[in-house]
């Protein structure tokens, strides 16, 4: 065979691609929650600079993260809905918490600036069940004296994909509204009575910014990044709060992560004057029988995040776990994976 210029070029191209792909294979893949995506993205960028290991994270929703880790197509699945210990045992999975954050309502009402709208749990439930359809409804006006509410229809924006953000939101509404608990319940995908569905936290944020009179729920980092108009809420103790890292951590201080089996805790509607009502945690799920090297790489990444990434986390209002919890996570991983 005569090796022409074309053949030599082709061989060189193939060799380069194989070489590049062999190099790229040294990475970690994860998928799941869009809630934790800002945090993982920030950590991954710095981690790649420090260690050269790429973390490839696809924000497809908590439901997707759970499905992919059960199928074993990724190294770690991120979910804002913790799996019950029984489900973890059934699929051979383990989970550990990553950070604490919270979500809030965002709205697009002409004349209402950020932090001007005041709501409470039962009111949110009524709006998202479609029982309140106009912004100048007396039930909203009662909580917002002196605020000029326009005669504009409310467009509810919810998630169209399976989401831990939805789970946390619906879990909170189930606690404060018996009708919500009976009719709708809480899961990563629910049967929304009204509204438009956006894909991911980003999709909901995008729709709310586009549609006048809309209201949706997003994770707090998206509110910070996009400078969206957020609502203030009355918590269980009757105090009026703005969402903040302190509020999320005050809620988390009420639960002891170390005592919960497989770290299964729910942070919504926690007692305390400073507790933000719609707080939540986000978990990483691993397969017990994945290749040891893969699990070790994932654990190394997140331990690095716990030790060196807290400043970045705080900047986007993700709260660090208490040191006792991090220690408990180390013990848990040691006993379950031997890492």
């Amino acid at each position, binding site marked *: 065979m005569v090796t022409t210029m074309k053949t030599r070029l082709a061989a060189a191209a193939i060799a380069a691609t194989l070489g590049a792909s062999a190099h790229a294979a040294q990475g970690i893949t994860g998928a799941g929650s869009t809630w934790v995506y800002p945090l993982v993205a920030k950590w991954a960028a710095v981690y790649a600079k420090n260690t050269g290991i790429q973390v490839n994270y696809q924000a497809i929703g908590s439901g997707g993260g759970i499905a992919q880790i059960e199928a074993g197509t990724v190294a770690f699945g991120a979910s804002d809905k913790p799996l019950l210990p029984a489900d973890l045992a059934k699929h051979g999975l383990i989970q550990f918490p990553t950070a604490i954050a919270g979500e809030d309502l965002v709205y697009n009402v002409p004349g209402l600036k950020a932090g001007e709208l005041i709501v409470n749990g039962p009111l949110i439930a009524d709006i998202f069940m479609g029982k309140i359809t106009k912004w100048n409804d007396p039930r909203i006006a009662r909580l917002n004296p002196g605020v000029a509410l326009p005669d504009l229809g409310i467009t509810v924006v919810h998630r169209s994909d399976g989401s831990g953000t939805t789970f946390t939101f619906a879990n909170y509404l189930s606690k404060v509204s018996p009708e919500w608990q009976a009719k709708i319940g809480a899961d990563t*995908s*629910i049967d929304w009575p009204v509204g438009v569905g956006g894909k991911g936290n980003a999709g909901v944020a995008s729709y709310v910014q586009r549609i006048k009179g809309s209201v949706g729920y997003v994770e707090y980092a998206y509110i910070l990044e996009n400078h969206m108009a957020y609502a203030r809420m009355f918590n269980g103790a009757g105090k009026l709060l703005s969402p903040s890292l302190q509020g999320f951590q005050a809620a988390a201080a009420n639960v002891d992560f170390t005592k919960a089996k497989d770290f299964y805790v729910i942070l919504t509607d926690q007692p305390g004057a400073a507790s933000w009502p719609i707080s939540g945690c986000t978990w990483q799920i691993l397969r017990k029988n994945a290749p040891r090297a893969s699990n070790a790489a994932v654990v190394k990444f997140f331990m690095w995040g716990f030790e060196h990434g807290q400043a970045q986390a705080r900047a986007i209002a993700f709260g660090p776990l208490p040191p006792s919890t991090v220690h408990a996570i180390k013990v848990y991983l040691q006993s379950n994976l031997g890492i």
Partner: protein
Amino acid sequence: MDSSEAAVESKLPPAIEEPAAAGRGLSLPADFLFHKLAVFMAAVVGATLVAAVAAIGYDSLPAIKVFGVLGFLESRRWDPVSQQFGAYPFIVGTLVSSAIAMLLAVPVSFGVAVFISELAPGWIKQPISAAIEMLAAVPSIVYGLWGLLVFAPAFANLEPWINDHLGAIWGVGALFRGPPMGIGMLAAGIVLAIMILPYIASIMRDVFVATPARLKESAYAMGATTWEVARRILLPYTRTAVTGGIFLGLGRALGETMAVTFVIGNSNNLSRSLLMPGASIPSVIANEFTEATSKLYVSSLIYLGLVLIAITLVVQILAVFLLGSLRRAPGGTR
């Protein structure tokens, strides 16, 4: 004519018989190989279709066992929490968005085709034809992005007018009342119409241009207007191809996923108004498939896919019958 052909034939050497190909050693004639290969390819295509439908049917079995056929088709609940699934809102969404697309695209395509074949000055025919072909070349996800980022905000400015004026018409007003969201069933129908326009328009244009000139010239000579020529000469002559083109566009509209998912609003509730959000079968599968964790949930989504296959099959059978009756009827040859 016949005598000269016979004279030519008698001068040629007698035709050489091709020997029977099978079992004649290693050098099989290329014709035999080509014949068998073509048959094999056709069989592969048919087998793939059957295998795909069989696989989807098999994976839908758990959902069929739980919900049955009629129960699934009539149920309006799609509730992953209580594991109750029903296809009715999505079937309606698919059919309604496709119907809007066809209602908008077919007249416009007809107008474009008549313009190119009859009315346009010679220098403009090529650019317009090229522009229509370009519409078909745009990827569907780009249509979705365009629909969400450009069309929906602009449409949201038009929707209050639709709500106030069309929504006030007695009888059909309920179809046009709703908040000015920009996205929704009507927006999805309009984006779909733009997507299927090139398919219908280019087929219509091709057959209109290919209509024998003597038919059109005779009609013009007798004093027919352009509209009369289009309606009474072009359409009847080309009705088979035009119907085929329309069904091609319909098939495309029924299965379109990404563009619809971006603009239809993703609401699993049935609403009387076209301005409200809805969902179609492809959009719900695209949104929920990666995150469906329970077996029944996944099986229900696949069952939805089976329902969509059934709908397209019904449309295909309708097309075959319609085309058959059109071909048999006197008049056009195409």
